[in-house]
């Protein structure tokens, strides 16, 4: 049975990083979360309609984590995540159009139809994917931090991972190097309590929480409730400051919950957990409803404004479906593009010797 985390304390709302927020910024977070939700609901509908292949791992229920953390990024802060990557992609500023088109496998997709749902990238927005192998991105996040430090830049690498990734070896190897070399990486464990169909208590041994495992590596760690943006931002800011000021890593575990299965293909997600549990989260812990209530209470949002924001998100999502639908498929010739930089650029290296071996 997943733990239900307590309400955030007023301290988090009054943290400096939150006190300085303008009403516009607060409404923007609402809009950003609704955009993720409406985008994914539209994607789910199209997936069910047979418009896309492969897997679709939905982020719905976890939106406050991506929005809260990414909202703190500066010019030298970078993001990398696993395969449940739509939320982070929209959070860093990728457009719904290229994201939806990627799901449709179209040439206008963010990866030209070569990556799919699990492999979104936008290096121009400091967003390094979108990685399909559980925990495979954890050494890469370390490398982003290493690169920042090597170049003398004051930045951080926010490396997201699920609770299912914490038992992979390369994560621990990465923690060791992060601490040993004082690298500014922040491992953010989005603990939605299920690694596919296996609950946290059936998959992971721990004392008080997963992040506490960092203790053995002399890495600072923290645990927080992810349903409230103020809390997420207050806790993430501490980690970012630790990275920026002291070049030290953090493991930050953020409690959250996904409403849908591991992927849409996960037919048993109401078997390994109860419908009541899902309903309870939707009713009592929904990050969007919670933030809405918060902003209504603060007097910086009206019901009419909420509806306007929500309708805009729905319209944007619907337009992205139209964009994806009407976009061209990638050409068959593009299968052999983007394999090698040197070949794509027609350099001497790319035109010397045989690179591809079909008859």
């Amino acid at each position, binding site marked *: 049975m997943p733990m239900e985390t307590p309400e955030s304390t007023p301290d988090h709302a009054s943290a400096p990083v939150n006190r300085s927020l303008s009403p516009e910024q607060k409404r923007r977070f609402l809009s950003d979360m609704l955009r993720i939700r409406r985008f994914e609901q539209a994607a789910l509908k199209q997936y069910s309609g047979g418009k896309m292949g492969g897997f679709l791992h939905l982020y719905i229920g976890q939106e406050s984590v991506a929005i809260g953390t990414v909202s703190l990024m500066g010019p030298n802060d970078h993001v990398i995540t696993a395969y449940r990557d739509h939320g982070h992609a929209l959070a860093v500023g990728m457009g719904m159009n290229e994201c939806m088109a990627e799901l449709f496998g179209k040439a206008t997709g963010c*990866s030209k139809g070569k990556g799919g749902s699990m492999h979104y990238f936008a290096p121009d927005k400091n967003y390094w994917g979108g990685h*399909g192998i559980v925990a495979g991105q954890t050494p*890469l996040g370390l490398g982003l931090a*290493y690169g920042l430090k090597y170049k003398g830049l004051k930045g951080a690498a926010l490396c997201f991972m699920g609770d299912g990734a914490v038992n992979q070896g390369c994560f621990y190897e990465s923690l*060791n190097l992060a601490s040993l070399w004082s690298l500014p990486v922040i491992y953010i464990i989005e603990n939605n309590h299920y690694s596919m169909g296996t609950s946290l208590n059936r998959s992971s041994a721990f004392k008080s929480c997963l992040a506490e495992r960092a203790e053995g590596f002399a890495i600072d760690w923290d645990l927080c409730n992810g349903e409230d943006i103020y809390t997420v931002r207050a806790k993430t800011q501490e980690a970012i400051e630790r990275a920026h000021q002291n070049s030290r890593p953090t493991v930050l575990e953020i409690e959250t919950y996904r409403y849908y299965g591991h992927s849409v293909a996960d037919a048993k997600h109401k078997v390994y957990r109860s419908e009541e549990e899902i309903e309870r989260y939707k009713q009592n812990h929904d990050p969007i409803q919670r933030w809405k209530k918060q902003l209504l209470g603060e007097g910086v949002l009206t019901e009419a404004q909420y509806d306007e924001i929500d309708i805009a998100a729905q319209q944007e999502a619907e337009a992205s479906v139209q964009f994806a639908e009407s976009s061209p498929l990638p050409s068959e010739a593009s299968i052999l593009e983007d394999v090698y930089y*040197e070949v794509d650029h027609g350099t001497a290296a790319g035109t*010397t010797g*045989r690179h591809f*071996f079909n*008859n």
Partner: protein
Amino acid sequence: MPLITYREALRHALSEEIQRDENVVILGEEVAEYDGAYKVTEGLWKKFGDKRVVDTPISEAAFIGMGIGASMLGLRPVMELMFWSFATVAWDQIVNNAGFVRYMSGGLINCPIVIRGPANGGTNVGATHSHTPENMLANIPGLKVVCPATAYDAKGLMKTAIRDNDPVMFMENTLLYGEKWEVPDEEYLIPLGVADLKREGSDVSLIAHGRAALTCLKAAEILAAEHGIQADVLDLRSIRPLDEEAILRTVRKTHRAVLVEENKPFCGVDAQISSILMEKAFDELDAPVLRVSAIDAPAFYSPKIEVKQLPRPEDIVPKVLSLFS
């Protein structure tokens, strides 16, 4: 021209590239303070310091993956694997991340990393330390694979590999580290994808890569001295990209080919070469293409037996003679 060892040639290449490009950084187990498990990086840490030459813990999955991540940000890490055998614990990072990140991002990200180290049998260290994974890694579109046989080639190819914007898997050989060849003082580069005709003949083509190319040179001397057969010896140098033209050129000249490698036979590099010859030189061949590979079992420990597991001149000569019977 100065005679220097294979390891010195590699060291000179690393040293020159560290000085040429501030983004080049050497990382690996024992590469810095210990001066390199096989002394390839000897003296580089003293010369260039902690930032450019970095000792890692024994933690291949993390440090190889870390190098890949850093290369995405524009660094040019040269990562030493003490043995290429240890790539098995970093396989996900090498294949899925170095190999595929460019493709899956639709060309938005490159990975200009070099992963280097010895990949050979013949040193009596058993199966876990004797892998020759050039065929496995050349099977991954997105990766490049290089296997230099001489000090000259090692230096020229290493400098090119570091400047290449794609991930290059650079496979050396501990049995060659102490061997000497002539290497000029002046800077030179050897392109990837260009084979080297190391001996000219007219009767048969011996096609090989890595140390097997040297074994072929020895076999060619025996064939010439004892049997009056003159062999072309073509050293592929680079597996992917592959110099297909050079392969076809030599076979069109001699009309006979024996393919030699220290790789295992099943799906080995020479299986690919063989397929190319079947497809593109079928009418040129006066005899079947034959292969000499490592004997198809995990690497044997016992020194007096292991030496027989890898191709020797005496394994190559009868194969060649069989083409003329």
